């Protein structure tokens, strides 16, 4: 994988166009390498938009954390 390919993939990843899974399939060995490549380009790991097949399960998850934080204060 050339540096240009790597940079392109990382930009796509940061933009939420491809997944960490697909980066791994395309030669990234571990997530530290991904974080390093993001840092090199001044980018940060993406945050998933609240969409897709698991929205309900994710909203439940956020509610669990919210409630746990409140109870644990």
């Amino acid at each position: 994988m050339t540096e240009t390919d790597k940079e392109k993939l990382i930009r796509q990843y940061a933009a939420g166009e491809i997944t960490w899974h697909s980066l791994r399939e395309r030669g990234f060995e571990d997530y530290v390498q991904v974080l390093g490549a993001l840092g090199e380009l001044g980018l940060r790991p993406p945050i998933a938009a609240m969409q897709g097949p698991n929205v309900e399960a994710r909203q439940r998850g956020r509610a669990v954390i919210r409630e746990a934080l409140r109870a644990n204060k």
Partner: protein
Amino acid sequence: MSQPFTLIVTDTSPLFTLALAGSLDTLLRPGLPVRIPDAVYIEATRVHGAPGAEQIVEWINAHLDLVQIVPTDIGIDQQRRLEEGRGIRGLGEQAAIEALERFLRSDTTAEALLLFEDSDIERRQAVFDRRVSLISTGDFLRELETAGLIQSTDYILDQAAAQGRNVERQRLAGEDSTTRERLREQLTRRGEPPIEPSR
């Protein structure tokens, strides 16, 4: 909270992100027990001294009352594969599925919260079990931010990337010096003095 929730870490990426940002303790802020499947743990820490690995090991040891490594059959398979020099890609997530199934079977009232990396959570297959909820690293940090427990989600993610960049630079420099060292050894073995750089 009426139900006993447990946070199950499904992949190495949330651990590395939080470890490099120096924020692993945020995982404990909700006060939920944390379970890390053995294959995820091994994948994150198997290279001794690797960036993030040491922090993860120390953090787990400092919080054994709340953080548990879960043994799985997949973890045993992973061990065998490592010994045979075979790939272990994807085994962490398989071990997380096994750990989840064991967990749900062990207590019919228990509920699990699966922690995923953000890009993967958005596109994976739908979860229909009402006892299973999902959370991504980003969603998790946002809840902490809303509760005023961290400065900002973006700050932590930026810190992880910045630290990752430093680590990668050191790694590349290390690889470079290893190459130089090997070349020097080759030349010395032939009885030739190392070539001095031209001035």
